[in-house]
């Protein structure tokens, strides 16, 4: 994307006033998005973006700039402006750039470039039809399909450079169902780091049926109980609680800032013995997978918690150097406009050995929480609140009525210790994770788990 000679020139210009590190990040992307609502395609949009982010460090400080261009003159000018803001004593110089390798390889079978607008339109129309055919209670269907093809190049003052091409495809369905005065919504998404072969994994129609099933099923929901109860959290999207209430606290920038309850806990027991948790950016085609992270480091699999013992945090280059730890390939960024930060990729609680049915059977009175409408977490304390979008009562070991308006409120580290059973049905769900104003692709995951007690916010007593 840029000549080695120019890359070196820019890196060295960034270093000229004694910086400790310099980096170039180039991104070119072609994106397309289509949106359907009210049974019609109401928006069709395309984007072309090209830009370069420049970064340098001096001590603990990061300086960053970006330009919407690859012209040598503009890059050098931005590098000069940035380096003139620092006064350092390092005298580094980049002599050679070597390409970094990665074990992550995938082939794109159906590139978005070969998919014409009518095919995209047909996908959304079939989602709409299948949702509405599911039940006459479905009164609205919103669906969006987007894809992005991008090329990313990085080079830094350690003499490393990387290049990757990446294709990502995303389909989301949101439906509204009504029966009398009751209105319920259902949401499902399908997202992979691949082209239109994504629909070999799952058909758009099936996604439509799943989302509709949630909305229609919840129409008969009863008021949720309030108070502390045993809670069984379902597989796949249930992992969002671990992601939000524990995962963010394991990101090394939170550790460095003493804004995490997991600070100083490496090697210590932080969860019940049956809990093992992993961050793995190398799982082929997953939404949170990549060849290289946003700093040009190869993707990797990191065990975060092993049998209840905290094994590793999640690092980017800067935090791993500062904490003298092994880099984990988790320096991620939304685009060339953003500074990389330690971020999760595909993060999950590993599967155990219990059958999910036997887990539910073990609960006399409790809640089965299957899908969540997102949530909010204070990363410093791990306190969380999650709205349950699909949940049921458990009575005498059996799943009973669906419940409405329920939230789970609690504390992540506390919940980790209260996990009493881990199922053997590990599954994943894609999503977007926001941090410091940057949204990136992630997957959350877990098998069915049972927590001995969580506060349930509901309306009946």
């Amino acid at each position, binding site marked *: 994307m840029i000549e080695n000679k120019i890359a070196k020139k820019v890196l060295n210009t960034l270093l000229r006033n004694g910086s400790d590190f310099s980096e170039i990040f180039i991104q070119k992307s072609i994106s397309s998005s289509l949106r359907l609502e009210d049974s019609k395609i109401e928006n069709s949009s395309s984007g072309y973006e090209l830009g370069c982010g420049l970064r340098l460090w001096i001590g*603990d400080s990061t300086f960053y700039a970006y330009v*919407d261009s690859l012209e040598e003159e503009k890059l050098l000018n931005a590098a000069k402006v940035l380096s003139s803001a620092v006064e350092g004593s390092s005298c580094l110089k980049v002599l050679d750039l070597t390409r970094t390798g990665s074990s992550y390889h995938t082939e794109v079978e159906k590139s978005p470039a070969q998919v014409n607008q009518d095919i995209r*339109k047909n996908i959304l129309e079939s989602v709409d039809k299948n949702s509405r055919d599911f039940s006459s209670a479905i009164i609205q269907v919103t669906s969006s399909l987007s894809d992005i093809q991008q090329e990313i190049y990085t080079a830094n003052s350690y003499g490393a450079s990387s290049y990757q091409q990446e294709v990502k495809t995303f389909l989301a369905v949101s439906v*509204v169902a009504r029966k009398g005065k009751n*209105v319920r919504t259902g949401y499902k998404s399908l997202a992979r780091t691949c082209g239109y072969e994504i629909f070999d994994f799952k058909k758009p129609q099936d996604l439509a049926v799943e989302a509709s099933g949630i909305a229609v099923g919840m129409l008969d929901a009863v008021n*949720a109980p309030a108070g502390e109860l045993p809670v069984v959290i379902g597989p796949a999207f249930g992992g969002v609680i671990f992601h939000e209430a524990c995962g963010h606290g394991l990101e090394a920038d939170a550790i460095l800032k*003493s804004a995490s309850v997991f600070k100083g806990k490496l090697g210590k027991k932080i969860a019940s013995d049956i809990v093992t948790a992993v961050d793995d950016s190398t799982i082929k085609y997953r939404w949170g997978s990549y060849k290289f992270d946003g700093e040009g480091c190869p993707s990797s699999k990191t065990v975060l918690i092993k049998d209840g013992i905290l094994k590793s945090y999640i690092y980017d280059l800067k935090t791993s150097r500062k904490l003298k730890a092994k880099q984990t390939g988790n320096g991620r960024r939304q685009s060339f406009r953003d500074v990389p930060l330690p971020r999760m990729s595909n993060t999950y609680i590993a599967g155990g050995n219990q059958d999910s049915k036997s887990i539910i059977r073990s609960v006399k009175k409790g809640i089965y929480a299957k899908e969540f409408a997102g949530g909010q977490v204070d990363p410093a304390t791990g306190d969380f609140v999650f709205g349950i979008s699909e949940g049921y009562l458990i009575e005498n070991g059996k799943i009973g009525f669906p419940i409405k308006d329920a*939230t789970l409120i609690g504390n992540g580290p506390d919940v980790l210790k209260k996990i009493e059973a881990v199922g053997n049905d590990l599954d994943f769900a894609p999503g977007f994770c926001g941090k410091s104003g940057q949204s990136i692709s992630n997957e959350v995951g877990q098998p069915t788990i049972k927590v001995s007690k969580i*506060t349930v916010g*509901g309306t009946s007593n």
Partner: protein
Amino acid sequence: MAQICKDAAFRINKREVDEFEIFTASSVENEIEIFKRKVETLSFSDSIGMGIRIFKDRSVGYAYTTVLDEKIIEDCIDRAISNSRVTKKEEFNYLPRKEEFKFKKKSTDDSKLFKEDLLDYDTRSKVALAKKLERLTKSKDKRITSISSVVYNDSIHETALLNSAGFFGKYKTTACVVYAAAISRQNGGTSTGDYFGCGRAPDDLDLEDVAVNAARRSVSILGGRKIKTQRVDLLLDPVVSSQFMSIIAGSLTADSVQKGKSLFKDKIGKRIFSMNINIFDDGTLAEGLSSRPFDGEGVTKGKTCVFEDGYLKTYLYNTYTARKDKTLSTGNAGRASYRSTPGVGISNFYVSPSKTGYDKLLSSIDRGFYIMDIMGLHSGVNPVSGQMSVGAKGIWIEKGSLKYPVKEVTIATDLLSFCRSIKKVGKDLKFIPWGGYIGSPSLLVKDITVSGR
């Protein structure tokens, strides 16, 4: 920027399209984050982009680019045209006409949107300002063990819009925001609290106010206890009230109503709040960070009374949704950036303050809960059905005074009965500069169930 728009218009004029619109936006932004008296991150950017909207046979297509080379602009036009081939044809798909503007006369004072003073501040003085905020916040209470985040951000935006119906306009804005988050610890308990300030230039920022409030919001809820489930009165801090208002605001846009996704559907002329509540959307407010002379499709902005004495008066419209409801555009075509087409969005949206002070509201409560922080609002409220369930932290109120901190409380109710339960409004109007510019004073809400243990 005018020239860039005109050049692109010249190119589109050679194509077979009915109408077109060119939106160009540039921005220069600076952001500084301080941690432990040092610059943690300093970033700046200077960027530009263009979005092209094409109308052809009553269908719309959109494409944007950050690269303004001849070849890429031609390619962008091609993509916009090809996108217009798959979208649904609709009779209302054409550019706004002047007679469709609700506000005929421009009332925004453009000179108030841009403060030259911002340009006088160099990076060094901005860093000093952010460091001062960190120092001030830390000094407010001994229990504050660290400042987890201090951010200074400023930006200069320049926007130009040209369309084939003869509209051309441009404006410049400046904005400046600071944020501080304090972590406090005592007896094994941890608590975080944050606060912010904003304006057009650094001179507008009251650092002392930001520091005092960040510290107060952190320390005063340290060591919170759980309470039993019960019905009490609530006193909402302005930051919390404003967050509730953001949910209400989102339900008032005409597209959410027309698509059946708003709980205010069929509620025009109905009583939603108590008599004393008035809510405005004002795109012309001098200090409002969402003020503009015209909206995302060139329609003049104005001041719309959305709720008058508790009654819902109108929804907020862009041109397309106004045509559907056979009314005029309120100038609420929102546009996050050149990457998106104009939707419907709020401007400066706020609850009109009263003359009642916070103390008076507090002293009127016999048993209640002063809410300082809510969690899970955007996921815990279903704006379609109105059901809500959010987590809350704050201080318990007995006999008109604050007693002890309380945590892990959930509030489950529905938004409409919550609105009806708002009985009193304070005078302490505060705007939050995220997700629009939304403001509210303290609110007193009667008789709500709070769930604890």
